[in-house]
């Protein structure tokens, strides 16, 4: 929520040539937030992170790019000759842009619910375990086995072996807050 606040402040004064003191302060705070998230994965404190952690960093800052979109973002910040590491120098301006342009916004709850309903072809209010696994591991941008297991551990109702997706979503929303 704090992050959103600073994005709003930043955008709100953008109209006045974006030069106001508040906008500058907003930008500084934004950069600090991005830097902090980056540093969590910067194990050697030398302003670089393993490229494989970039997805986690971007997503933890509240953006939801798809795997494909993530690929593109990484390509933007990689070195000319990929080293396996991404430098903060390149990451920071890209991320500031992404956040202030409000790209890759998180998916609103109602759309998420609709998505589950689309998969629920029988319109029964739930998905069987097999159905969910099939969709998640075979369609779209497939889950790994680990991702699937993790989702099931919270989503699956062990008594009925189904995913009661309304309840599941409601629980996830509470968890997040």
């Amino acid at each position, binding site marked *: 929520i704090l992050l959103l606040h600073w994005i709003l402040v930043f955008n709100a004064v953008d109209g006045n040539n974006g030069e106001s003191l508040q906008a500058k302060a907003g930008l500084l705070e934004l950069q600090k937030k991005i830097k*902090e998230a980056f540093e969590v*994965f910067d194990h050697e404190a030398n302003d670089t992170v393993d490229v494989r952690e970039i997805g986690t960093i971007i997503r933890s800052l509240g953006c939801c790019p798809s795997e494909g979109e993530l690929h593109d973002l990484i390509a933007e910040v990689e070195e000319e000759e990929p080293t396996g590491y991404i430098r903060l120098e390149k990451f920071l301006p890209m991320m500031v842009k992404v956040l202030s342009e409000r790209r890759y916004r998180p998916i609103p709850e109602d759309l998420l619910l609709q998505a589950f309903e689309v998969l629920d072809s029988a319109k029964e209010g739930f998905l069987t375990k097999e159905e969910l696994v099939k969709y998640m591991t075979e369609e779209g941008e497939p889950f790994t086995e680990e991702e699937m297991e993790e989702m099931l551990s919270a989503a699956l109702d062990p008594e009925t072996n189904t995913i009661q997706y309304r309840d599941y979503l409601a629980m996830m929303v509470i968890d997040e807050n």
Partner: protein
Amino acid sequence: MGCSHSVHNETKKSEKAMKAAVLIQNWYRCYKARLELRRRQALNIFENIEYADEQDQMQLAKFFAFMLEHYVKNKSSADNLPKIFNPEPKRKSDEETIISLIEVPDTYYGPRLKFPLTFADVVLLIDAFKENQILHARYVLEVLLEAKKILQQMPNIIHISSTVSKELTICGDIHGKLDDLFLIFYKNGLPSGNNRYVFNGDFVDRGQNSMEVLMVLFSFLLVYPNDVYLNRGNHEDYLMNMRYGFTKEIMQKYKQHGAKILHLLEEVYTWLPIGTLIDKKVLVIHGGIADNTDLTVLEQMKRNRMRSVLMPPLVPAVFDPRHGHFSHELPPPAMLAMEQLTKYEWDQIVNILWSDPRSRKGCYPNTSRGGGCYFGPDVTENILTKFGLKMIIRSHECKPEGFDICHDGKIITVFSASNYYEEGSNRGAYLKLSHDTTPRFFQYQSSQITQAKTLHERVDIVENAAFRILGERMIIRKTNLIQAFRKYDPNDTGKISLSDWAKATEEVLELHLPWMSLCPRLVKTIEDGYVLYNMGFKDLPVVRAPKVAKAGMVETLVRYRSDLKIIFNIIDKDQSGLISMDEFRAMWKLFCSHYNIDIEESHVDQLAHSMDLNKDGSIDFNEFLTAFDVVHRATNKL
């Protein structure tokens, strides 16, 4: 036409389904990422605090040196030094006599060991430990004594050969986690002539079963002295044990004979070999290396003189022939009576036990830990070349996956204590080496929970534990924190910006953490991006100190309580738990001057009196210090 219409519908349907799937996958991955960030943040907190604690001990080490010089200055001979600074060489017969006088009562239903130990004895021991039984002090002492005898015969660095048929298993830090040790044995088999093991240090401290882990390892050493190898870690150090839990565990489990066990243990540690060399190519040591690491020196020194990282050798005075005395004020007999390593030798061994590899080139002091150094890939390359080595296997650092490879495959870290910081924090691992092939890694994670927890629950557990210890750090500097906040609020508005709060907190706590994202979890009130610092912190632990104590003093005592405990233990020559008021005052004066603390003696006196701890002019320092223990409100964990 009907057909194409339904095909069209099908395509549309599957397109919709694909889009829906992508949406859900995308959302889930974002959710996961946020949890992963929180988990990593929690681990960073743990690591930062762990290393900051280790750094504190440098101060303690200097204080000991200071104390020692103070004592030596005032005494004319070594006889009056507190024993701790100059242990008398123990005579074998004395030790054995003392131990044989300890009787094991008939009411003891734990395992009874017969010496020389056999495999059957060890199996008995393991079964007993699985039933949570405690081994009788008599047997503990006998195991330690026999282990010492065997270890004394070993060189500083043990040379072994790998064989084509049998693999060698190497384990890292165990830190008293008996369930991890048992898990390794379950997956990989018990040690034997056909199943050789190297345990690379840090068997004790932090976990709840350091004694049991040590007993199992030493017992296997006694049964298979040529197939089980134990390297010394930085926690195989009696003063470290006082800070990090093993001493406490011993005193709790062995109320009557704990002191004897501690004395013998101290010595046994010094006889542990420093490392193992496999096929003259693979060096296994606990910490790491430095740019001046010299295997020749390491192999030749008298390793048993390395008593503790907190007791560096004193630099001997220089004899001034013109005036016929030592230019330093220290009288020579007291100094020379102490068996010491040279500073050079001591540094060599500290580097082996404490250093960490880093990607930055060069070799520089390990400021996080306060001991050893950071060494880069160039240092590794040089040392490996210099001594004809292929790689170094070390431990010492907790890794999320239980192991790590760096410096182009030349440095391997293996860490065997899973859930080291908290349940769910990391995996443990061990590796197997066979002749001329690349090492194979095996991971595990011990778990006492019967039901699998969701990702969210697991992250919550780790995070809450991290915030608990962070809270402990904050409470001891609360006064300083408020002062720092006020500095950023010159107009006394009661609020400061988030980034100023972050800056101030980092300055005071001296911990480099993402304070801006941690802030909402630590403070009670944030409005419009400003922290209302007078409203206080969230969920800080409390100290049950008596009301008569002044806030600043309480914080100091809480902050230094583990150091003070060590110091008191040292002064307490007969291990009675009591020291005289005079000794207390003298030590307190030294302590304050050395640590630059501004607390008047009279305040401390007052406090001690009011707590009615004076028993015949003595202070029960354990009770005194318990008052400064930290208690967490939400749970009942200390």
